[in-house]
């Protein structure tokens, strides 16, 4: 397993993303951060803290579980569902979806469907720690911590201290055919 981002790298990337979010949205009015379960949750919390620190006003944070919206239930093991909790009405809000890795884009598609069932956001943007390429859908991120060229057979692991006890990004080579 090769380290590609240290904990400090990740912290700096998140701080830069926070500034980019403010720049792109000309402030934080009507902004809601929504993490995609599981690791998007704590990442969204951290971005909200950074935004609050920079702008001086609190940013609402939510979490979305995509278990009911996956398109691959016949080919992947079932994962226990988790709560979807949004801080109030999302109609007319600017939502920044937050996830650890952007890969095929299918998770983001599912999260967009989940949000659409709950309300009508004015704008939805996407922030990720790592974009590893290999998109299968026309989806792109607005804010990226690190662009990481990978092959299909490699595996990207993002760790967040709230869940994994440490921060960082690792790249792991894998045998052909065992890639997820």
């Amino acid at each position: 397993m090769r380290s590609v981002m240290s904990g400090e790298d990740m912290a700096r990337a998140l701080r830069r993303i926070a500034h980019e979010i403010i720049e792109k949205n000309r402030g934080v009015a009507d902004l809601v951060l929504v993490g995609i379960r599981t690791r998007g949750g704590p990442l969204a919390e951290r971005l909200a803290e950074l935004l609050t620190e920079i702008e001086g006003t609190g940013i609402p944070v939510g979490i979305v579980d995509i278990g009911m919206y996956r398109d691959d239930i016949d080919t992947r093991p079932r994962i226990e569902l988790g709560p979807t909790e949004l801080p109030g009405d999302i109609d007319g809000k600017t939502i920044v979806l937050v996830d650890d890795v952007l890969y095929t884009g299918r998770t983001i598609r599912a999260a967009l469907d989940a949000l659409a069932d709950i309300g009508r956001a004015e704008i939805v943007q996407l922030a990720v720690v790592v974009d590893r390429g290999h998109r299968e859908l026309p989806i792109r991120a607005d804010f990226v911590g690190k662009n990481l060229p990978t092959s299909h057979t490699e595996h990207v692991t993002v760790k967040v201290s709230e869940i994994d006890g440490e921060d960082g990004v690792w790249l792991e080579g894998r045998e052909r055919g065992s890639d997820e």
Partner: protein
Amino acid sequence: MKNLLTMEGVKKETLESLLSDADEFYDVMHRPIPKVPALRGKTVATMFFEPSTRTKLSFERAAKALSADVLSFSPGTSSLKKGESLKDTVLTVKAMGADLMVVRHTSTGAPWRVAEWTGLPVVNGGDGAHQHPTQALLDSLTLKQHYGSLEGLRIAIVGDIRHSRVARSNVWAFSTLGARVTLIAPPTLLPPDMEGWPADVSTDLDPVLDQFDAIYLLRVQAERGGASVFPSVAEYRDRFGMTEARFERLKPDTIVLHPGPMIRGIEIDSGPADDPRCKVLEQVTNGVAVRMAVLFQLLGGTKEDE
């Protein structure tokens, strides 16, 4: 989990996982658009060979809220009347593209045979006086919502235990989830085969009335011979009915559950039936949520776990 046929022997983790998913589907049911695409393209067949309104409607509501299609079978309007066998009927429905069958039948074991014949995932929607697992799940969810957990709860199941598939499922689910169950009925309404049931037994309700966190009332099942084994409805109500007087004597936070349909004036009087501590309508809502969880777990995901 390939099928859901019985509550006997089902692991605690399995029950907890179903209840946890049911919590999420409960939230979905309370959204402005109470529908998710989880089972789009799947077909659920509700094969009810015994009349049912609420259970069948509940399964169909659950399937539709998951975006599955529903094939709905009722015996009154079917070729069973023309002499078609159970096996041919279910194979016919499988050939039309059913991915899962919910089976209710008057004969014990029928859902197991359907699972064998079709190879499809099967949910037991009630077989004879044997099992009714989704009822046990919805009752467990109702208790969990009220108390946070079933661990350490004392639950009385009162009434026609002998003819009750609900009792046979609930005893196992409640005890597996950590509750202590007492079955309360006149001797004639207790089953002869209670060896190994994880429950205490009492033939008298009044002396123990104030010991329970929940009282689960069963319906007197005239259609299964329940009415013939005690002298009169009035006598049953006198000794086992949830009258106003008994309701007063419960612990102040004790809740009352009933699988429905309630027969007011026999198992329960109108006062207690309409009291907020009677959870019958919550049970009905929870029925849809747990059935969504069951259909989702049986049809969603690869089956490497069993």
